[in-house]
Structures are given as C-alpha cells and as structure tokens.
C-alpha cells in the first residue's frame, strides 16, 4: 500500500518535466555562487575565509545548500499544490481516501528528491571548484578538511526542504502563492533580515539560516547555529509544518 503510493507519486513526478528544469536552475545557480566565491577569494574585503583554508573550502561546498534547498522546496510545493491547481486531488483522494497517506508518500518522494538535488549541486561545486582552485595552486582532498561533514549537511538540508515544501504546499494549496512565497522568502526576505546585525540572535533560527548552519557555513561577519542545534531547529519546523499540513488536508473539502 505505502510502496504503491510512493511509486504512484514517482510516476506523477517523472511524467512531467518540472523536476528537470528546477534541477537545472539549482545547478546553474550553484555554479554561479561557487564561481563568485572562488573569483573573489583574493579580495581583501571578502568576509568569507580564503579558499586556501579548510574553512574556505567548507564554505564553498556549503554554498550548494541555498540553491538546492530552495528549488527542492519549490518542486515539492508544486507537487502538492498542483493536485489542487489541476484538480487531480479529486482522483488522488478518491483512490486514497485517507489523505494523510498521500501526504506521507509525497514526503517520502520529495525528501529523497531534495537530497538528490543537493547531491547534484555538490557535484557542480566539485566540478568547478577542484580544477579552478588547482589552477590557483590550491590542492585539497574532498575526503578531508571536514568536507564530508559539510556535504552530508547539505544533503540533509536538501531532504529537509523537500519535506518543508510538501508541508507548506499542503498548508497553502494555492500554487502561485506558495511558489512565489518560497522564492521571495529565500531570495529576498531572509537575506534582508539576516543582514541586520541587531536581529542576529533570532535570525539564526530562520529555516534557511539554520540550513546554512547545518551545512557548516562559516562567515566572519555572521554567526550560524552549530550543525546539531540546526538539525534540531529544522526538525521542529518539519514536525510543526507537516502536522499542520496533514490536519488541514484532512479537514478541507475537495470541491
């Protein structure tokens, strides 16, 4: 039963092309972020640690987190809100009247897809960073300098944002509002509030900033939660959002 529902969600995902376009967008944005990090590493006013240090290399790989998590969350949210936008929710809930099972199947699928988005973006960072830095005379091992921990963190945050995307989509149901909301939040609202030093005590707990903490981000002018704390905070967001999404999905009429 559960595996059939998960398989059905995979058929839904793979019979349209959106996952591919959003993956391409995440990888392109990762390439841009990684390129800028390397290009400006010798700039004396750069707040990021130099790419010749293990801290710098960890930050480089952590940059994959924002594009991967954002687009994974958007894909997941579209996977839920699309059921209402295209009115396929009727058929979906006809065949699976216990609606929480549909949400659970979507969580399973988009959690894994989010992790896969992160993994793909990490490959982009490695493909750009390793040869470019080698050209600058900086040699490093992907297995050393704390990099495996950063990569694991980035992959976990991808999964977390896949789950959050499902939950937020189930809460809001309106596709345009959800997608625009997620993009504006990640690319506009969060960067603005986190740039205000007076608010830093609180902004470290925001989902995207906590994700950066989990991925092991380091900046001289900013603080982040420790990975362990960040994981707890994110688990809390997921638990609350999923619970609210499931309750509302069960209660609302499908007209």
């Amino acid at each position, binding site marked *: 039963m559960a595996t*059939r529902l998960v398989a059905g969600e995979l*058929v839904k995902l793979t019979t*349209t092309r959106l996952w591919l376009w959003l993956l391409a967008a995440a990888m392109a944005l990762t390439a841009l972020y990684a390129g800028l990090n390397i290009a400006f590493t010798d700039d004396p006013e750069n707040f990021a640690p130099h790419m010749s240090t293990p801290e710098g290399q960890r930050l480089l790989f952590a940059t994959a987190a924002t594009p991967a998590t954002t687009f994974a969350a958007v894909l997941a949210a579209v996977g839920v809100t699309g059921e209402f936008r*295209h009115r396929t929710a009727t058929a979906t809930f006809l*065949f699976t*009247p216990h609606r929480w099972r549909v949400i659970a199947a979507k969580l399973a699928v988009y959690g894994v897809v989010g992790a896969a988005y992160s993994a793909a973006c990490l490959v982009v960072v490695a493909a750009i960073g390793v040869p470019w830095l080698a050209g600058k005379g900086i040699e490093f091992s992907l297995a050393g300098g704390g990099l495996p921990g950063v990569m694991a963190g980035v992959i976990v945050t991808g999964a977390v944002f896949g789950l959050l995307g499902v939950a937020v989509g189930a809460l809001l149901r309106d596709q345009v509002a959800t997608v625009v909301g997620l993009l504006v939040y990640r690319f506009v609202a969060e960067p603005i509030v986190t740039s205000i030093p007076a608010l830093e005590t609180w902004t470290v707990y925001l989902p995207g900033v906590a994700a950066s903490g989990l991925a092991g981000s380091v900046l001289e002018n900013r603080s982040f939660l420790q990975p362990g704390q960040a994981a707890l905070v994110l688990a809390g967001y997921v638990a609350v959002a999923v619970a609210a999404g499931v309750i509302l999905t069960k209660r609302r009429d499908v007209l």
Partner: protein
Amino acid sequence: MTAGRIVVSGLTKTFGPVQAVDGLSFVVEPGTVTGFLGPNGAGKTTTLRMLVGLIAPDAGTATIGGRRYSDLPAPGDTVGAALDTTGFHPARTGRNHLRVYCTVNGYAPCRADEVLDLVGLTDAATRPVKGYSLGMRQRLTLAMALLGDPPVVVLDEPVNGLDPEGIVWIRGLLRDLADQGRTVFVSSHLLWEAQQLVEHVVIINRGRLVAQGDLIELSSSFGSLEQAYFALTEGVV
C-alpha cells in the same frame, strides 16, 4: 444483492450561508441505471462528492454496500467515480495519467490501455491532455472511473461535451454496466437525455429530495418526465 447498494441518509451540507444539501435521503439499487436529476445548483455535485468522501457532510451518512466510502478496504476496486472533467495535469498524457492510478491501486500498467480502448481514446493515449477536447476529457474521466472494474459507478454529468455519437455510445456503455449487475448512478440536468438513459430517478431541488422511483411510473403519473420534473421542482431551472 446489497453489495453495491448506495444508501444516503439525512445528508446535510452548508457552505457559508448556502444550504447546499438539506436532510437528503435516497437509495440506489444495483443492476439499474439511476438518474440523479435536479436544476443547476440543486446539490447534485455536492451530494456525489459527499458520497465518495471528498466533502465532509455536516450531518447524515452515505454508504456503499453498507460502508462509508473511507471505510472501503479498496475504494478503487469498489467505486468508480467520474466527477471532474478538468482533473488532469495539462502536460501529462492520457495514458500516463491513468498509469499513476494503476500504480497506486496495484493494477498492471496494461490496464490503462484496456480502459483507454474501452472509452475510445487509444489514438490519443500518448498526447498531452491539454490537447484534448471536452468530449475526450469526458471519456478520460470515464476511463478513470472504470480503471478498477468497480461494481459501483458514479458519474457527474457524463454526457456534457459528448457529440451525438458519443452520447449513443455512453448510453450503451451504462446500459451494459447495469446489465452486468453494477450500480450505475448518473447525475444530469438534461431531461431529454436522462429519459433515454435511466430506469430509476432521484430528483432533488434546493438540496432536498422531491421524488424517487421508477421513471416510467413517475412519468405516467404526471404525463411525462418533463411535466413531472417541472411540477416537482416548481418550475425552477
């Protein structure tokens, strides 16, 4: 045979200030085509959606073979509902749309091709649904309903958008389904069409039952189905 009997009892639903369905009770027996008639806004769609658990009633129950829809062990194998001709992702092909629900229900993928053939959509199977006409969407909706070969079939306005050939075809199909002993419950606001299609009728108006019974008996006591309908629904169309 009660396995496929639909029993609606005291069903009530209010949307804000609108009393959509008001203490509605009726029974639909297997082996017949039963028409669910009433003016636009009478509460037909709301009733059908409450029957299959998509809308939660404020009061009352609806059961199929004695069970509420959400209590059916395998709803897709028991009830086929064609409720929404717009319920498709525009970029997904007709076959892929059916394959999703074959997978969910554990049917072989070839079942999708069987029902596409049954509703005459084989040639359009690999085209995205955005290129389908209303009649083709109607057929695909019907294919969804027949996917699990269910003993109970519920259809909301299945004739809308079909051409004359399609109307004759669906008439024969519903007749066949009923002759196989299935319960066929079909809503319509087209009286002329209903008269050709159904043996029993459930007529509602403003969310309330106004008549139920044998089409011929009802028609003869008022002169015709049309006269019966207008007499019973107070001329509200």
